[in-house]
């Protein structure tokens, strides 16, 4: 009923290929955006901002970056966290060397550095495929984290080897650092994430996106029909690393406030990979759904025992939490290997024809 498409006629190919072929999708998106831009910021508590809203957005962005590479261009990468680190350290260096730089501009520029590094580590993909490539990206992961630890110029020779986010001002209000209000940080994150999401949606629907998909589905065939594999793979690495780098800068500047090199170690890479896969490879929406599940669920699970009045040991909760996340990953893979986005697609199709299934 809600999703009835009767009466919505397409009169041109252009209309058929539009972003929202079904009007209800646009309405739904408008509702979600209203929530994200107006209702959440007005109602959320400090706790909700810091443990749910901000991290979900940032993780979704990182997963989107990975998804461009893995989901669209078919190049499996396990080095996401290191590229986030490149973005974060680049942003830190820019802010400390050029304090006059607008912070949002600095965050958006920091992705350029990770894109550069991403292309360098992407070069092997021209020869190496599949799991071999995945392990090769681990070389980037371990080497870069080692470099963050050893190259003291990166953290301004700080005695403890960590980077700290200073208080950053824009238009007279603090937008990052300890003095910044969570709601301001949230808006900055939301702005950047919205911007890049829009970019990604359009990229993946355009020529570049189709080139990537062809490469993913069968690279030799793609080459035979005249696709330049080098260009296709390296642009995927560049754009993916750019987005991941921006996510890394946001991760440290808008959320954590401080970071030591091992924050960017392999568990973070896996976390992002989970989100991309559980959400759905080759889908933009999936990254958000995946982030809600993987980031949001543990927080909720931690609150659950207290909320229902069960007194349970905090370490026990954490153990159970890890077990539940592990089982859920398996569960979702079994139920819908193409991710939550595919699940939503299914539901939507059912809704469109509901209540008459034929």
């Amino acid at each position: 009923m809600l999703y009835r498409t009767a009466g919505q006629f397409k009169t041109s190919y252009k209309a058929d290929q539009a972003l929202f072929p079904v009007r209800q999708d646009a309405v739904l998106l408008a509702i979600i955006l209203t929530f994200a831009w107006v209702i959440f910021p007005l109602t959320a508590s400090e706790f909700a901002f810091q443990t749910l809203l901000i991290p979900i957005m940032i993780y979704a962005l990182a997963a989107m970056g990975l998804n461009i590479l893995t989901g669209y261009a078919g190049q499996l990468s396990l080095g996401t966290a290191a590229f986030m680190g490149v973005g974060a350290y680049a942003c830190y260096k820019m802010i400390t060397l050029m304090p006059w730089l607008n912070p949002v501009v600095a965050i958006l520029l920091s992705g350029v550095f990770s894109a550069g590094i991403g292309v360098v580590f992407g070069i092997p993909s021209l020869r190496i495929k599949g799991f071999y490539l995945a392990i090769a990206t681990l070389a980037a992961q371990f080497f870069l984290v080692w470099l963050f630890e050893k190259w003291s110029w990166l953290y301004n020779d700080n005695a403890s080897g960590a980077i700290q986010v200073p208080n950053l001002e824009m238009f007279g209000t603090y937008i990052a650092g300890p003095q910044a209000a969570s709601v301001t940080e949230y808006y900055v994150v939301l702005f950047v994430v919205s911007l890049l999401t829009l970019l990604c949606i359009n990229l993946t629907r355009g020529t570049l996106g189709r080139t990537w998909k062809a490469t993913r589905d069968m690279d030799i065939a793609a080459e035979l029909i005249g696709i330049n594999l080098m260009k296709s793979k390296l642009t995927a690495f560049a754009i993916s690393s750019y987005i991941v780098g921006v996510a890394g800068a946001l991760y440290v500047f808008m959320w954590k406030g401080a970071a030591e090199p091992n924050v960017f170690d392999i568990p973070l890479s896996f976390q992002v990979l989970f989100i991309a896969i559980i959400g759905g490879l080759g889908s933009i929406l999936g990254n958000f759904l995946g982030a809600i599940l993987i980031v949001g669920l543990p927080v909720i699970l931690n609150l659950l025992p207290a909320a229902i009045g069960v007194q349970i040991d905090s370490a026990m909760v954490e153990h159970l939490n890890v077990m539940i996340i592990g089982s859920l990953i398996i569960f979702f893979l079994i139920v819908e290997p193409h991710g939550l986005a595919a699940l939503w697609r299914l539901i939507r199709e059912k809704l469109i024809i509901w209540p008459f299934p034929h």
Partner: protein
Amino acid sequence: MLRDVLFTPFADMIAAPDFLLQVLWEGLVSGILYALIALGFVLIFRSSRIFNFAQGIMVVFAALTLVGFHAMGVPAWISVALTLAVMLALSVTIERVVLRPLVGQPDIILFMATIGITLFLIGFGEIIFGGENKVMITEQLGIPTGSFVLEPWGGLLILEQKDVTAVIVAALLVAALLAFLNYTRMGRAIRALGDDSQAALSVGISLQTIWVLVWFIAGIIALVTGIAWGARAGVSFALEVIAYKALPVLMLGGLESISGAIIGGLMIGMLEKLFEVYWGQPLMGGGTEAWFAFVLALVVLLFRPQGLFGEKIIERV
């Protein structure tokens, strides 16, 4: 600068040959352990195309189960038997609950599923065994704990007896495994499945039995690895990270090759120690073992995309 890179390290090696031998020995011992973990990966990958990330946690789980049984007062060798029974039960469960519903899915989905298994086992293991560092029951298993002290060229070379034992046991295990794969019905079935799963199924090889069997063998290897590694520094969940060390071995040796896993493991173990001691520590501030193996493997792969011993990749449109 160039002198430090190209000349000094070799001069050091020649000046103190006993030390060089010690470095190589340490490399050999770590290499054996990397090779064992890689072997677990290869077996499972060959027969089911699953990149089994859970091999690392299986090592921890097996070692903790062994120590756990012993702590309950069970004699050491009976604990080993019980641990093997637990590993078998684990294999059956994994096959039933996780693998069977996922047959035919893309590789990456199966890979993620094994990460799911890893997380589940971490949480489950910590509930049962607790997070404390435990002492491996080395002596109770009859593993000698002393050390051989040799004096080649008037120098000093220390060989821990438990490391020597580990090397010997690992060699025996590999020999037994090769014999099993080459000379028994079951072993041939595993190899057949690796070569062509469709053809293997059509001649009546049971996928389910083989999978359980392969995971169980991986479990045995995990137990041996756990004992050997646990004897060195105790058993705790921190051991799980050694799984990462096996990945470059796989790249170097090839995902399907058993001999590749062994040779690759030994090569990486020794080369990374040599590099760390003679180049990493003097010139780069140390800690190069974190990435050396990966970078080495990456360079090799650029020339041989299927690894040193992997099967040649033939692509058709």
